[in-house]
């Protein structure tokens, strides 16, 4: 296996764990919960997507990104401008002459045909439906059973954490905008899928215990 393949393989193993609401570091704030959904979202492609709507300055792009996708975790200015510089270098955007005005950069960025093609390809590509959380939970359940610990207790704790997160997202959905509701639904359905797995595993613990001890 080449280094690149190994690196990609590692990424596929690790990246979903970071962007999955079910296994992200647990928190009591729903705002942070939603920001977790975007950890895996590619910033360059998102900025390209925003530029496809209309040419824009870095400041305005940051503002739009934070409003739509930031959710308590705003994009640093430095990241905005470095990303735009890379996109310009790669021919995906062009930067017009610097305009006079307040702020560190008054360049107006325009998406190129190549940039549009990249956005289209990104949107058309399905996100890998990987069984991320189950991998972690499965390992914990098996190890708990192997070491004689209570796997059911562990699953109960995980269930409680999941339900708490679902309650936070439900509150956000009830009192937020339609965009909030859409994002919260995404998290809720993922958490619900994990919970179904937890329920089924709870029901199969005896059989699983027999398998790991045989």
């Amino acid at each position: 296996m080449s280094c690149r393949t190994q690196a990609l393989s590692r990424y596929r193993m690790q990246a979903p764990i970071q962007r999955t609401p079910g296994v992200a570091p647990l928190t009591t704030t729903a705002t942070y919960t939603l920001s977790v959904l975007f950890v895996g979202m590619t910033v360059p492609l998102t900025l390209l997507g925003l530029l496809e709507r209309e040419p824009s300055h870095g400041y305005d792009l940051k503002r739009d990104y934070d409003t739509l996708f930031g959710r308590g975790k705003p994009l640093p200015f430095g990241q905005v401008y470095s990303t735009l510089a890379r996109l310009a270098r790669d021919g995906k955007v062009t930067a017009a002459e610097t305009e006079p005005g307040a702020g560190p950069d008054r360049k107006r960025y325009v998406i190129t045909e190549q940039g549009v093609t990249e956005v289209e390809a990104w949107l058309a590509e399905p996100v890998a439906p990987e069984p991320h959380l189950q991998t972690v939970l499965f390992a914990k359940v098996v190890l708990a059973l192997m070491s004689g610990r209570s796997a059911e207790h562990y699953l109960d704790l995980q269930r409680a954490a999941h339900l708490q997160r679902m309650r936070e997202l439900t509150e956000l959905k009830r009192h937020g905008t339609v965009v909030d509701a859409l994002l919260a639904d995404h998290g809720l359905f993922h958490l619900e899928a994990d919970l179904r797995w937890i329920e089924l595993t709870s029901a199969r613990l005896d059989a699983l215990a027999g398998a790991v001890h045989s």
Partner: protein
Amino acid sequence: MTALLDAQDVTFSFGATPALRGATVSIESGEILAVMGPSGSGKSTLLHCLAGILVPDGGAITFAGERLDTLREAERTALRRDRFGFVFQFGQLVPELTAQENVALPLLLAGTARTTAMTAAQEWFGRLGLDGLERRRSGELSGGQAQRVALARGLVSRPQVLFADEPTGALDSLTGEQVMDLLTSAAREQGTTVVLVTHEPRVAAYADREVIVRDGKVTPIVCVV
């Protein structure tokens, strides 16, 4: 805080088949409690015992400081009619009655004058987005509409406790969400305690707290994070 509804070590069997094997749970006034658990775990049986529909074989159930399980049948019937409300998976509306008469039914059964009962029922139609459906019969309502009518019927008498058994079980996700939103908002608005039986985590997420019924016993879900 004193529990409004309390079950201690409740047992119940259907013939030789035990359904509850020492279930213990307390519900505070104004609380929305989700009772979860796999099919056949005893969660609906627990709800029926808490609501005075079934009489436990053992243990004790207390409502507002008074033993409920030792009441006579007529007293339990009066309690259910006057202080409890019910919503089930399928609306179970009376097909011969109009939607408005269905909503007014608990008040009519409690002896409220028809005009007063119908006026009180009418108020719920606007509140639950059912305006214009007052004269329809259950067969002329969609699933979501029928369930909202059932919800209005469950809440019209301003019960102290609303028992909801899989209230969204027959609805699609979006309609179920609307019903849960209305149910919890209305219950909180009038301070009604809710005992919500569901196997759906998304529905349970509307509650303040969840417990799981497993093999006839209640396990509290405690979040340590």
